[in-house]
């Protein structure tokens, strides 16, 4: 018995130590439960972080686009007449965002916005010899745009250089057209304008469709090909908090009058999948937590029965009901604590192990390792609380034992 250790702690620890096999079994059960929770949570967080990283390094957080053109019927119904008009939606031609420079300068001062990049997108035809492929032409200011979409990270040959007569294309388009670095291709835009451009870089975005269609040219080149000199079709933004993108988009739309789409809205399906994963993970946690709680409770119920004489004698010696209650609550908390420490360590180790084993074809990691200390702290805290809560019923039963009945057995 150490000095400065209260009666409840000494007794709870001794009871656990004496019932060593029971203690080991239930600590193991708690540890397995906590390990499953920690492993699943860490894995889910890692995969989610990986997906978000991939999504957010290949698209802007918010995209500003010009409002749709709408038809405005000139003829109005006269007094006492009803006009049954059929208004046809006009075809959407490529248009520039009105006063985009002013909007860019305005948004650049917002603290929640990190980068504003003007871009010009248009459809075109890439032609080389007899081969031609339709492409999406993206005119960019590389210095700003590459801060949003990390094309340099995906370059597999050449450089991400886009000067006036340069073009950066995907590996699959290069194969289809039979071109390589420094080769020239003829780009004809839908406007009728065409230009000979030199391939300066090849990228691989990991998606054949994207590698076939996406191309990058200088902003002024795209503007010239689209007959939209000085104009931009989109303003791409990144924000400080990616999860606040939707609220920032709404604020931008309110402030500028330009339609703003956040990555959250354009990737709604992703969030549906994440929410489904979260729900299933929560359910698994709940059921694992319940099984841990019932395990602890059953062990303590048996312990109360086994120790009823001890409890009776302690009560006869002047131990209060509160002290008996605390002895058993502490046992529940200690079982939860011991099990969760072991389980958190095991769960964390399992994630590290799988992270080391699971690799992509190129040897890079399949998912980034996300092990937040808060996950371990909350797992231990919740397990301790579960242990204490699970111990409540047996502890109350122990505290309420009639000492006469308990001693008599």
């Amino acid at each position, binding site marked *: *018995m*150490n*000095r*400065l*250790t*209260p*009666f409840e702690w*000494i*007794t709870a620890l*001794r*009871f656990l*130590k*004496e019932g060593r096999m029971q203690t080991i079994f239930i600590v193991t059960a708690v540890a397995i439960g906590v390990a499953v929770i920690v492993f699943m949570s860490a894995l889910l967080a890692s995969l989610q972080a990986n997906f978000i990283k991939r999504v957010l390094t290949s698209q802007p957080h918010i995209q500003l686009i010009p409002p749709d053109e709408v038809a405005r019927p000139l003829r109005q119904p006269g007094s006492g007449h009803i006009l049954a008009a059929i208004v046809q939606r006009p075809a959407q031609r490529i248009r520039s965002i009105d006063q985009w420079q002013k909007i860019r300068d305005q948004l650049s001062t917002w603290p929640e916005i990190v980068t504003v990049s003007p871009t010009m997108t248009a459809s075109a035809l890439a032609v080389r010899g007899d081969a031609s492929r339709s492409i999406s032409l993206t005119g960019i200011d590389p210095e700003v745009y590459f801060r949003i979409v990390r094309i340099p990270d995906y370059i597999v040959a050449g450089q991400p250089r886009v000067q006036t007569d340069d073009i950066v294309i995907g590996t699959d388009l290069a194969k289809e057209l039979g071109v390589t670095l420094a080769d020239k291709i003829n780009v004809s835009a839908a406007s009728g304008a065409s230009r000979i451009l030199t391939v300066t870089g090849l990228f691989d975005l990991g998606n054949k469709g994207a590698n076939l269609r996406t191309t990058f040219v200088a902003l002024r080149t795209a503007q010239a090909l689209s007959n939209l000199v000085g104009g931009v079709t989109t303003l791409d933004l990144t924000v400080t908090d990616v999860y606040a993108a939707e609220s920032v988009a709404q604020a931008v739309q309110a402030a500028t009058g330009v339609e703003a789409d956040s990555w959250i809205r354009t990737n709604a399906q992703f969030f549906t999948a994440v929410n489904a994963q979260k729900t299933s993970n929560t359910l698994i946690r709940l059921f694992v937590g319940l099984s841990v709680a019932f395990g602890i409770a059953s062990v303590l119920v048996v312990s109360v029965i086994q120790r009823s*004489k*001890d409890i*009776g*004698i*302690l*009560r*006869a*010696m*002047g*131990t*209060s*009901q509160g*002290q008996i209650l605390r002895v058993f609550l502490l046992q529940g908390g200690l079982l939860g604590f011991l099990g969760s420490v072991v389980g958190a360590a095991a769960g964390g180790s399992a994630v590290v192990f799988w992270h080391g084993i699971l690799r992509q074809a190129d040897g890079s990691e399949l998912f980034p390792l996300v092990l937040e200390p808060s996950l371990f702290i909350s797992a231990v805290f919740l397990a301790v609380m579960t242990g204490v809560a699970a111990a409540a019923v047996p502890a109350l039963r122990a505290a309420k034992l009639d*000492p*006469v009945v308990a*001693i008599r057995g």
Partner: protein
Amino acid sequence: MADDTPVLRLEGVCKSYNIGTPVEVEVLHDIELELGRGEFVALIGPSGSGKSTLLNIIGLLDRPTKGSLFIDGQETNRLDDTAITGLRGHSIGFVFQYHYLISAFTALENVMMPLLVERNFPTDDMRQRAAGLLAQVGLTPWQDNLANNMSGGQQQRVAIARALAMNPALVLADEPTGNLDTKSADTVFELMQQVNRTNGTAFLLVTHNMELARRCHRIVEVVDGRIVTPGSASASASA
């Protein structure tokens, strides 16, 4: 508290079970009993006579249906559970037929337990007092043994030391020798008498052994829930 205050006084104590039901039964009837300081009294009676019920009421483990119980001059009927628990811890020691030591603790820790319950933190004083009590019952060499690793007689001696830990005015012993062989029973009984003489602790000893009962200061007999011999303290009786 004046020295002539009895450590125990019962006035018209009754105990009934199943109160208010058709099967209500009164097991103790109008008990009058008094124990002076330093008395060593035997409580005898046939099985089912109400001895254990009486002992539980005296030990504040149960409450009387009627009548008053005074421990060390303090009337206990109006005390709440917390006060009853405190009074029980301070003023009464228990020795049971089966020692009921806590198997998770050593002999020394079992003796320290009432002190630990009271003061919460173990101190050197506590340890010294427990060691002293174990020395008094002749168990110093076994003080670090777990209770389970000791003989029945040794365990009962540890139980006596534990009962004395809080230096109570009264020790209630419920057939403490009933489960021991003759030699061990005699050793334990002599030990209690020695404690009674040395510490002045009053003992109320429930026993079926008339030989031991006759060695007490006086005998109180319970038959069918009534005391059939006078309950007042005898003037003097020596062990």
